[in-house]
């Protein structure tokens, strides 16, 4: 009977603060919207409504800009929270996994059904690097997006950023190249999203923890067994 109790009892682990959870879903929605509107801008698949007064393309572009600015502000906030949020400890602790070859082997083996996924922080090393790359993509998409933006709206923030963005534009090799890089970042997200969703569900099933719940409630749930093993590991370390 004791055996059963061990497996049914669980203990919650605080992982994400509410702001980080909200930001995650904002990014998810905004990036989806940006991909759809971005595809339209690259290749306008809906054409005129029969009048030059109905600005079909301009409206799509306008939504792209609105979503883009939400992405920029949510991205900036997320980067700040990574270093200064109240849930930063778990994330920063993952850096220790990134620099540990053993952690890399453990994570890769676990994906091929060998052993469990033990890690020091909340992310495995491969997971950490992937999320890091996604944030880099957000930054690159935001910067290239701003370069393209300052040529469309010349007042306000467009005016304020015009000169620095022109400098970056020249550095990247002209607007056509900027536009090209911007397009490539979209493919980065598009390939990341299915992998991300799959591995979250897979890891929840495979390792029997709250991988999906964590982004809604902020808490991950582990089997009692894990806790006992952790305690045992700590004792071994001593």
């Amino acid at each position, binding site marked *: 009977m004791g055996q059963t109790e061990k497996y049914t009892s669980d203990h919650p682990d605080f992982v994400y603060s509410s702001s980080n959870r909200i930001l995650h879903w904002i990014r998810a929605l905004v990036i989806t919207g940006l991909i759809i509107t971005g595809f339209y801008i*690259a290749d306008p698949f809906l054409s005129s409504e029969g009048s*030059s007064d*109905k600005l*079909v393309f*301009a409206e799509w572009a306008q939504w792209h800009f609105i979503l883009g600015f939400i992405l920029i502000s949510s991205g900036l906030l997320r980067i700040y929270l990574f270093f200064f949020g109240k849930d930063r400890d778990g994330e920063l602790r993952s850096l220790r996994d990134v620099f540990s070859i053993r952690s890399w082997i453990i994570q890769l083996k676990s994906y091929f*059904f060998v052993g469990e996924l033990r890690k020091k922080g909340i992310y495995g090393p491969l997971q950490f690097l992937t999320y890091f790359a996604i944030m880099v993509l957000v930054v690159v998409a935001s910067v290239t997006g701003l370069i393209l933006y300052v040529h469309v709206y010349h007042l306000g923030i467009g005016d304020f950023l015009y000169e620095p963005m*022109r400098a970056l534009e020249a550095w990247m090799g002209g607007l056509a190249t900027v536009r090209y890089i911007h397009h*490539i970042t979209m493919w980065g997200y598009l390939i990341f999203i299915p992998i991300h969703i799959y591995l979250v569900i897979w890891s929840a099933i495979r390792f029997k923890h709250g991988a999906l719940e964590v982004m809604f409630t902020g808490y991950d749930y582990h089997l009692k067994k894990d806790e006992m093993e952790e305690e045992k590991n700590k004792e071994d370390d001593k």
Partner: protein
Amino acid sequence: MDGFDALYAKAKDRVRVLSELPSTKAGSIEEMLEDRGIERRDFMKWAAAITAMLALPSSFTPLFAEAAKLADRVPLVWLHMAECTGCSESLIRSDAPTIDSLIFDYISLDYHETLMAAAGWQAEEILQKTLKDNEGRYILLVEGGVPTANNGQYLTLGPQGRTGLDVVTEAAKGAAAIFSIGTCSSFGGIQAAAPNPTGAKGVDKVISQPVINVPGCPPSANNIVGTLMHYLLFGTLPALDRYHRPKWAYGNRIHDLCERRGHFDAGEFVESFGDEGAKEGWCLYKQGCKGPYTFNNCSTERFNQGTHWPIGAGHGCMGCSEPDFWDTMGPLEQPIKSHLVMGLNSTVDKVGTVLLTATVVGIGAHAVASMFMGKKEEKED
């Protein structure tokens, strides 16, 4: 004249300095124009137009007309490097001689390989004489890219077989100002397209003096003359952008002042050349127009005596005034999503689709494997 007093004084001073210089020609420009049937009224209209193009107040017009009449005080040397002479053509081709081309023809004869009568040793002598007699005074205009590979041996000219690199370096030394006319001399042009076998470069990359770039394939006559006249009037370089292009000409994108812009915003696109949209003059974005990525004033200044320009004629912009446009803007009649990925005979969208498919297949394989592994472990428990 708010804010323009200092500029006006500067230009006035400059005109005084110019008028004290000796003329390089026998007759004055005024006489020349009168001989060719240009009335003073037409000349003043032209002066007013160029003044407006340079974004100067109309009070500058008389001063500018003065400066234009003194254009023969500044000798010009026009060099041809690796190019097609299209830039010269842009300036001199017209159904009747324009004031631009008359003044230009009159003053430029010091050295212009296409226009001058001299050839061979004679031409070489004129070049040497002009460079020596007018040291520190002449304006150097260069048309064409400068091949640098193999010591510049891909371009040799003249009776002594000198390399273009050698000629342009020497001519640049004594120049008061250097203008790169056209995309080839500004950024290397088509011969600098990957893999650039001749190592062609823009003039500013092979000499150390500051250069004003007037790119375009070709640049409009107004942009060439405007840049020259700006120098004539002020004796200094105009405000330049990051690529050293005068801001008065290259400050806006083609897209910003395009006559078809309304159709772009309305989502009215030409789907194929010759369709109903094309007849209606709709936007050419889906036919590969590169106007959104290109800085120039073609839509307002136009070509062939200001009659027309590519988009007006129903073909998209191909981005000719941008650096490396052969490499970054291609294919010319397809949107930029059709651009080939470096080293692969494929577009970003195709590569992306393949990667995405591979991802989905990988996920499926992993999921199926998980099902079997899961069953095995459940039994173990």
